[in-house]
């Protein structure tokens, strides 16, 4: 059962679609008689799909679709344009406006339900939250900075949890200006994840690392799996600041990941480590995404040369940001403190690639 928002100025059409989608399709249906109210409901109720009419007074369906696509929180909402305007040019206009599908009125009930299910299915590629580990086996290349800022950007789109998986006193909490009160080392099978999460003012939830380094690995394989299962039911995106060693828990997170962000600096030791890590991660290579982080100011080798040395494509190259040290010291991450910086733009690009 999904939550479907229907926006149409005709009350007869709304009632008809409510009956079709609720009685026949067994979906929860929210109705709206105009574009403005529909947009508000899309933001507040975060439906799984929207069906939108075109010809509505005050705000047309095309405008509604455009505003949904421009709002990062609901930009990925699947949309069906359902309109009496059924000309070939109208289909093109609907797709150009950002709709996923154009359907003409009058609509065949079975076809509508089938297309709704197709779009809902396409939007649910996996059960639970999408998992994005951020990894480098060489320390000091900015993995934590990247994880924290990416998680904040993802939180602007969907509820996100940042997991600091370091067994040796992680630093995500410090980056976010939070004091560690709970951590994943306290997780046992009966524990609820909500008890361990700490909330940042942005709404991002953090599962901190233990302040005191843990002995062995901290969590057994079964405990790690239970933790991940619970996290996946709690949120929609999980960003993981991975430890610089491939612990049992780290390997589980890699296996379950949607995309793995492999971070490298542009110095020779970083490149060597990254190249070897990529070899190690060959089983996951179709999910691997290489990010080159510019840690130091000054001239840097050209991307083509680094790409040849790394033997894999660089998906995003992050710009150097002189204010980064200050951002860490003040607990105010860059994407919030300097949202217009080149680094923030690079991170937004990376976010889009990850959730595409």
């Amino acid at each position: 059962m999904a939550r479907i928002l229907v926006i149409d100025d005709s009350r007869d059409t709304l009632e008809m679609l409510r009956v079709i989608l609720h009685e026949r399709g067994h979906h929860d249906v929210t109705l709206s008689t105009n574009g403005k109210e529909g947009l508000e409901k899309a933001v507040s109720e975060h439906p799984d799909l929207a069906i939108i009419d075109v010809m509505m007074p005050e705000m047309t369906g095309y405008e509604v679709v455009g505003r949904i696509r421009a709002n990062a929180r609901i930009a990925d909402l699947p949309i069906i344009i359902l309109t009496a305007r059924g000309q070939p040019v109208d289909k093109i206009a609907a797709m150009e406006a950002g709709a996923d599908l154009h359907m003409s009125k009058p609509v065949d009930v079975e076809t509508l339900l089938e297309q709704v299910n197709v779009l809902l299915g396409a939007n649910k590629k996996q059960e639970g939250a999408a998992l994005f580990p951020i990894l480098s086996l060489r320390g000091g290349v900015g993995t934590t900075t990247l994880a924290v800022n990416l998680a904040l950007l993802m939180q602007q789109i969907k509820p996100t949890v940042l997991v600091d998986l370091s067994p040796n006193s992680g630093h995500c909490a410090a980056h976010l200006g939070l004091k560690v009160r709970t951590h994943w080392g306290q997780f046992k099978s009966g524990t609820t994840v909500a008890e361990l999460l700490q909330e940042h003012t942005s709404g991002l939830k953090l599962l901190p690392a233990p302040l005191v380094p843990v002995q062995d690995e901290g969590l057994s394989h079964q405990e790690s799996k239970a933790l991940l299962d619970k996290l996946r039911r709690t949120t929609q995106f999980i960003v993981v600041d991975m430890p610089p060693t491939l612990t049992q828990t780290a390997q589980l997170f890699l296996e379950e990941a949607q995309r793995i962000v492999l971070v490298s600096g542009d110095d020779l030791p970083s490149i060597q480590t990254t190249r070897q890590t990529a070899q190690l991660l060959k089983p996951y290579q179709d999910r691997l995404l290489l990010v080159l982080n510019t840690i130091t100011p000054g001239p840097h080798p050209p991307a083509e040369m680094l790409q040849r040395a790394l033997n894999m494509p660089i998906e995003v190259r992050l710009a150097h940001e002189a204010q980064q040290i200050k951002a860490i010291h003040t607990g105010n991450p860059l994407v919030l403190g300097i949202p217009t910086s080149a680094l923030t733009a690079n991170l937004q690009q990376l976010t889009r690639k990850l959730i595409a």
Partner: protein
Amino acid sequence: MEAHHQQAQQVMAEFFSHGCRLSGTYDARQKSLGDVIYDTTNSYLIVESAYISPIERPAEILANYPSVTLIKAELTFALAMHENDALRRDQKYGSYLGPKLTPVFLTVPFFTLNGYLRLPGRVDPRVLLSSQTESFLTLLDVTAHITNRPEINYQGAAALINKTKISFLGIDTI
């Protein structure tokens, strides 16, 4: 099972005039669009829930009104999605429409139209184009291309074309 979005009396149609496209419904009240358009006793047509766009930019709604009065003499053509919505009562049930379909090409301001005439016997262009008795012409299975943007087209099961707006008429067989 089809889910009709309009009440039984409300029929959706597209109207074209002076480079504008008006999408809306008209209250048929037991009459088809053909009955209303061909009716010489009144010169206008009321279209409800009317949305107006430039013919070249369908996503741009220039204006919308709950009700619009459309002057039939200024209409270039109207497109109906279903044949029965466009045909007159006598065309549906009488002997007016013969079995012969004749391909037709014609030009009106902004558009070139391709479709079929369904008339009994031979087609006489002089009779066909005479606006003395009837001001409109019914074409079936119509595609209307914008003359200077032929990649943009509008399609309908039937079109009612204002004879006074036709400049070229090409008939496949006479």
